[in-house]
């Protein structure tokens, strides 16, 4: 299911009259960050292209940048702490060759998380970004069961010092938003991709997959890339190279 910007605004507005995730933080701010004329449109499909050959062992710039951007903090309980993005090490047992690559929500075109969500809290924006409306999420965790990429985290404890542009709350589920707040204010990049470039690895490329003039679209067309679990046919917005 994709939700129109209008419906999203309505949901936000309805929620804002009643509940706030934390004092002063309203979902509607997220929606309003984009200028009203500029609705999330189906003309765009945002995505990432990740080159695992450029990603290096031990580097965690993308992870740190994401978690700083959204104030994802650790309580030193790795099993229950939220992680929107993680570095995965994948070793070929035959050759011993090791790949390093970040994994986050793959922003599936046919997202299983959205299909199973009973309330519609998990939704896909017209521009392909998959989000959770924290005001409707009842914390059933069915989406986490359904996600093939382990991309989602349940918030297991109280959250403090939230960023105004990232509504979060104990008892709800969250995942990578593809830095929707940055996209909507026109940054045209994500925190992870920015950090990776800054560090000099340039392994993460962000862009509009549907605009054939963008670098990401060109590279997707001319260079080999693949989706994780391609057998599931989810048409992920995040693709990988070098695997």
């Amino acid at each position, binding site marked *: 299911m994709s939700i129109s910007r209008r419906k999203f605004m309505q949901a936000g507005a309805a929620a804002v009259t009643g509940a706030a995730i934390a004092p002063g933080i309203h979902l509607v701010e997220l929606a309003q960050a984009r200028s009203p004329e500029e609705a999330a449109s189906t003309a765009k499909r945002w995505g990432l292209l990740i080159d695992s050959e450029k990603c290096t062992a031990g580097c965690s710039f993308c992870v740190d940048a994401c978690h700083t951007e959204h104030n994802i903090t650790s309580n030193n309980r790795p099993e229950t702490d939220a992680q929107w993005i993680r570095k995965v090490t994948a070793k*070929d047992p035959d050759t011993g060759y090791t790949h390093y690559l970040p994994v986050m929500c793959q922003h599936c075109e046919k997202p299983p998380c959205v299909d199973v969500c009973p*309330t519609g809290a998990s939704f896909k924006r017209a521009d392909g970004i998959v989000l959770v409306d924290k005001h409707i999420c009842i914390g*059933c965790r*069915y989406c986490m069961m359904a996600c093939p990429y382990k991309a989602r985290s349940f918030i297991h404890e109280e959250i403090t010092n939230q960023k105004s542009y990232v509504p979060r709350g104990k008892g709800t589920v969250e995942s990578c938003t593809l830095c929707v707040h940055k996209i909507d204010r026109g940054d045209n990049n994500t925190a992870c991709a920015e950090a990776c470039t800054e560090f000099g690895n340039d392994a993460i490329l962000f862009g509009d997959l549907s605009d054939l003039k963008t670098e990401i679209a060109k590279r997707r067309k001319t260079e080999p890339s693949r989706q994780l679990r391609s057998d599931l046919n989810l048409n992920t917005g995040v693709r990988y190279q070098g695997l």
Partner: protein
Amino acid sequence: MKQLTYDMIKGTSFGYWTLLGIFGVLIAAGLGSAYYMETNGHYVTGMNNQIVWGMPHVFAVFLIVAASGALNVASIGSVFGKTMYKPLARLSALLAIALLVGGLAILVLDLGRPDRLIISMTIYNFKSIFAWNMILYSGFIAVVGIYIWTMMQHNLKKYNRAAGMGAFIWRLTLTTGTGSIFGFLVARSAYDAAIMAPMFIIMSFSFGLAIFLIYLIATYHLTGRPLGDVIVNRLRKLLGIFVISVLYFVLVYHLTNLYLAEHSGIERFILLDGGIYTKVFWIDQIIIGSLIPLLIFYVPVFYKSRLMLSFGALLVVFGGLAQLYVIIIGGQAYPLQIFPGMEVSSSFGDGQTGNYTATPAEILLGIGGVGIALAAATFAIKILPFLPQSLANEVVDPHSTPTT
């Protein structure tokens, strides 16, 4: 033939109130646990970002599955016209509702935001099997409620058969829906099997009848009502067949999975080297929960004792919980195969078997749900005529000569 009369139990004895009191304590413990989990956040439970559904879900799914199975006794009577089961129909329908309510209560209390229950009941995503289930569950209570009504109200008797049929169809849909919760999770190796839904139906037969049998024997014993061997033996044999059928489905499930190369990993995990899950599967589910009960149900020295028979049924319940533990928690503990064939590691538990140990709070929440079901049923038989005064052989089947 003796006239079949239903009445309420007196429910004034010290024993009755003690029993209700015990159920009340279970409920209070469950509610307390839910409150504790809710105020602290789920980090105080054994559940985490890898094992997102834990012990509460094992109990909840068990009760929901058993609920539709408990209705089976009534269905055999009304839909399949087996007169011997007819006197049991009211109790069967009552237990169905009570068990369902208990199971749903656990599910709701375990939500991250149980305070938003109203959202889940008003906003539906019709693509979600979960949303459909909420409709199926509330509908089940209504349909079975009507069915009970047609049984109790004389002038509605003519609708009884239709209502029974409706309830029967509804319960099949409901169990299919519950099984499909897992069937839709194609990304997880353990659940990627078409046999899941029919297996849940046959599991419901077994779990529901086991609870029914225990409850029947206990209430008739405690209220001093006659309960003849004819009916008890019927139910015993039936339960034996159901237990065997579940075993058969489990066998087929694992054989098909073994046959599929991409599922050999999960099979190895459950059957061979999954640690706790392998143990729970072989010892708790297969030996204690299936083979020992079968022994009890088919060897006369055992089944002739009502106590022993109830114990056998209790083991079936235990085996059912074990089976769901393996399915629900074992299925999640086995790592997602995001990079098939690779050795994977990360800070988020990729490639590792998930850790899960149920905390007392989770178990108490589950038992609290059982408490709700038992309390509801035990209270209902005091205020409405659910139980036949006598289920002695000559009442149940005038032509019967007691068999064993």
